[in-house]
């Protein structure tokens, strides 16, 4: 019995190792898009993978592991408990932003830094929409919120980001 369990555990560990090897780069980029900095991205990636490891045996459809990891990471990110949310309050003094202009590189930098001004749920919606290319219904499922909330969060987020560009242009 123990030998069987050990064999099963070993097989699960090999599966997990294979999953991490093939998905960690993509997941780390996703974590970076959510958190905005490498240190927090590494923390978020690790926390997500630990949860995935613990849930490994209960996930029946291993074809959807990547989707499970995406949901886990997004929800962990917007969780009230995450330390980066308290450390980087979006109501705190905004970072100094580069001026917007015809230079699209500057605009892209402006957008990236402007994401730090959004609340975590707004940022998560933006990342799921534009980085993960998910439709509104899937974003709603991912975050466990209604489609209406996704629409309103996305609308507010885009308004905030547009204001950054437009405000500096005037």
């Amino acid at each position, binding site marked *: 019995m123990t030998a069987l369990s050990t064999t099963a555990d070993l097989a699960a560990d090999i599966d997990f190792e294979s999953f991490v090897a093939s998905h960690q780069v993509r997941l780390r980029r996703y974590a*970076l898009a959510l958190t905005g900095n490498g240190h927090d991205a590494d923390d978020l990636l690790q926390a997500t993978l630990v949860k995935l490891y613990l849930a490994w045996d209960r996930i029946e459809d291993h074809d959807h592991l990547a989707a499970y990891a995406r949901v886990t990471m997004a929800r962990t990110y917007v969780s*009230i408990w995450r330390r980066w949310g308290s450390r980087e309050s979006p109501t705190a003094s905004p970072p100094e932003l580069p001026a917007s202009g015809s230079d699209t590189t500057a605009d892209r930098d402006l957008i990236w830094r402007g994401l730090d001004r959004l*609340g975590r*749920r707004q940022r998560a919606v933006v990342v799921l929409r534009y*980085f993960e290319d998910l439709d509104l219904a899937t974003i709603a499922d991912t975050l466990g919120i209604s489609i209406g909330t996704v629409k309103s969060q996305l609308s507010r987020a885009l308004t905030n980001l547009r204001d950054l560009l437009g405000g500096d242009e005037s």
Partner: protein
Amino acid sequence: MNDFDDLIRTSLREHTPATAPDDTLADQVAATGRRIRRTRMAGVAALALVVVVGIAWGWAALPLFTQQGVAAMPTMSQPTPSHPASSPDPSVRDVSATGSPEGINYTGALDNYFASPSGNFHCFISTAGAGCAGEKWDKGVKPSKKICQGVGSVIGPELRGGTAAAWVCDTDPHSQPFLSGAGGDGVTWWDPTFGESIPAPSDPSTKLAVLPYGKTLVAGDFSCSMAKDGVTCSNALSGHGFHVSRSKVDLER
């Protein structure tokens, strides 16, 4: 699709470069996962032992009671938790049946999230436990992330079930209640006549209830009271509890 959408897409892709994979990551995570599993198993084993001993004691005591002419087994004495719903005390509110559904990997209880008036502590209370996360701590109050076994960060003190209060990490699966499970609003459970609400620090577009000084929330056996010197949460059944302030955390309250 328009230019602005493309700008956001390009910005996100440009600022999230692929990094070299860490070949040790899976091993690190698996090692942490195994340690968490062992800790869980030890907890389950301890609980099972208590139950077995309790049942054995009951069976052993039954003939004794019968001999003494006792018609039935006496009910195990259980401290009766105070339920403020039946109490006229206006400073106490029973929230056992309110709150947000759990997030993934959680226990099934309804979590009620609230903040301290200073905004420094964000707490939850449910019939399964209570805990608080601090925004700012005085130097040396929060333990090193070493207690998280190398992965994750220290959140704050937490009471879970009948066990003693302990520091928890964000990698502890049970310590991941999610605001997003609240259906889009963190204060649907909150009675505005009992206390105000503030924009949630994690997302100012949502609200977070504020438990005023001098008031108490109760959920099942658990209670949390707010005072100017910090938050105190306790389990009336087990007697365990904690007190948390920016300058000190007492896990044996």
